[in-house]
């Protein structure tokens, strides 16, 4: 019933937050939510959470929101966000950290045996390689 998001030190200092910090090497606290990353992002038009919202969600420790978001997978790693961030946060690295965490969860991986023969025949080889790279544990 209560959809209110409960914020607590436990969330703010969760394992997810420290994992992101460790993998990306970035201090998420530095972000003051100016939105320059989202403004410059060439893929933002298809994202469900904008890059600045991803960062803020990490600040809040919203693990599920971040992991479930399409955004890290749509990130083209073009580094515009990283180059433009006024606080020097390497946002692309944060996106990569999110992807790493996702991958290690081995969720949503490609089950090769489950693919139909017809689909396999149509898929370009590069798509399969990328798919394995991104979506397998």
């Amino acid at each position: 019933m209560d959809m209110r998001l409960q914020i607590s030190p436990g969330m703010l200092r969760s394992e997810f937050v420290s994992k992101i910090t460790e993998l990306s090497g970035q201090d998420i606290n530095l972000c003051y939510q100016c939105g320059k990353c989202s403004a410059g992002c060439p893929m933002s038009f298809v994202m469900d959470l904008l890059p600045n919202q991803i960062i803020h969600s990490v600040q809040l420790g919203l693990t599920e929101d971040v992991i479930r978001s399409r955004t890290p997978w749509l990130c083209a790693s073009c580094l515009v966000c990283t180059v433009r961030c006024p606080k020097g946060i390497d946002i692309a690295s944060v996106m990569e950290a999110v992807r790493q965490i996702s991958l290690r969860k081995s969720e949503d991986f490609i089950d090769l045996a489950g693919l139909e023969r017809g689909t396999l025949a149509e898929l370009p080889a590069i798509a399969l390689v990328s798919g394995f790279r991104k979506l397998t544990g």
Partner: protein
Amino acid sequence: MARQVRIGVFVCHCGNNIAGTVDVKRVVEELSHYPGVVHAEDYMYMCSDPGQEIMKKAIREKSLTGVVNANCSPTLHQRTFRRVAEAEGINPYRVEIANIREQCSWPHMGDRETATRKAIAIIKAAVEKLRLNMELTPSVTPLTKRALVIGAGIAGIQAALDIANGGYEVVLVEKDICIGGRVMQLAGTFPGMERPDYLLASRLAAVTSHPRIRLYMCSEIEEVSGYVGNFDVIIRQKVGYVDKDRCNGCGLCLEKCPVSVPSEYECGLSQRKAIRIPFPDMAPFNPVIDAEHCLRFNGGQCQACREACPEGAVEFSGEDTLIEENVGIIVAAPGYDLLPAGEPEIYPEDPDIIDGLQFERILSATGPTGGEVRRPSDSKVPREVVFISCVGSRDPEHGVPYCSRVCCMYVAKQALLYRRAVPDGQAYIFYTDMRSDAKGFEEFVQGVMDEGNILYLRGEVSRVFRDGDKIKVWGVDSLVERDVEVSADLVVLARAMVPRPTTRELARRLNIASDEHGFLTEAHIKLRPVESLTSGIYLAGTAQWPRDVPDTIASAEAAACKVLSLFSREELLHEPTIAFVDEEVCSGCGQCVASCAYRAIDIDEGRAVARVNEALCEGCGACAAICPSSAVQLRNSTPRQFFEIIDVASG
């Protein structure tokens, strides 16, 4: 008129501003035939050096006795042209400005014919007025080179020290029992994080020992009369009932006094006694009995303090003292308050929902918790603290429309101080915008954000309520568009900064203006920011507008600078274009007295006529307009002059 009237008219093109709309050649042609005008000339920019030379040459060669300058508003160049005329021997009050720019060419752009005819009418009207202008000289009033400073907070202290160090005597009036004001209550200051006692210590000592500063404690302004250069002030000093010379500050009386009332200094977080002995860090040493709460002064027989005092310093007799001081100028620095609690449906009353000043005391080393951060209800160390900005600020419907300017900064500072005191504590800051617009401020806030364990949440709060041991805060995080909830141990409300409730009455006594919020009003927000509209009364600090410490000091120094520049003169010159009374006509009805905003007119009871105090009169003309018999008139703006103006302008 002994002398023949010889008037020169100088029409300015103002580049294209006037000449683009008004046919200046036709204006000059028309005016050159007007009675009394012996010279008419136009020029591209009359205010320029060549333009001024044209004026001077004409005044000399045509022996002019008066000048009409047709150009921009008199606020821009009346002074310029008066100076030019005076240099050539014409009385400056025989220079009239015909405003054919703001009042003619600009509003009638595109209608050359109308604009030209109107310009001619305006200039002819000015000629008619000039014809009847008297030669005047500014009046001279003596100047008392002593200053009164009201309020001994950091603003008043700074102004007093600057004026006293400039070599002039200062009367410093403080209504509290100690000096230092609000800054004394703070736990730290942004952006440098200096302790307030560090900021104040040397100044407090300098004020209390300065040979040219006379400090009146527990004192208020009773009455002010007079004018710039010569104010008579009556100060009421409340009787303290304790002999300061005998009192040794031992504090035995404090132990015995049975009364306890919420301490103002501690913002109600602790109790004080009815007899008050200053803390060692308070200045000056000023022990007093608070008669409002003392049992003895409320029908009781208690004399516990007197019995306890080993020095016999307590005396229950005495009366308030009325002190008369004569000063030349006044600096008003009565300080600020926080907006009283509002919106109880959002912020209910609870001991653990406090305001910013209260948290300053809790964070302060000399505060009620002895420098340990503990919450008021149960003295537990709060593990989670929520700060809420803009409580009442920027909310015209429920609070005040303005931004209080200091909250973003002090909330950041308090979060930092809290984090240092409780290293594993978590601070949350709800904010609407971050405003950090002065030197070092943005860097300070970003530094605080970088600290960790301080979470900024952009959004407002919908409800704050107690839930057992916790204070729940419901709000929104507008960046992720989610309603959020925080279970806090302590909630700090950054309430809006407002003037003290007593400031309005002080303004009334000083006869200076205050705005709809009660802030003292400056003469001009940009050009005269530390002057009131009443000559000789200056403003400093937060009674004028929300200010932080750096801005407060700057405004106090600016006020002191104005005072010192005034004191550098030997006497004061006063505009002569003021009201005068024709005593033959005046019936002493007194309507003019009521109309005067400057208290410059009174009735001479003996002769039953109105009397104008020339030093106070600002020449506004309210009295002249209201007088039923035209007995009060303004020099060089008489009814006769206006009838002539109307005649020519409508003809």
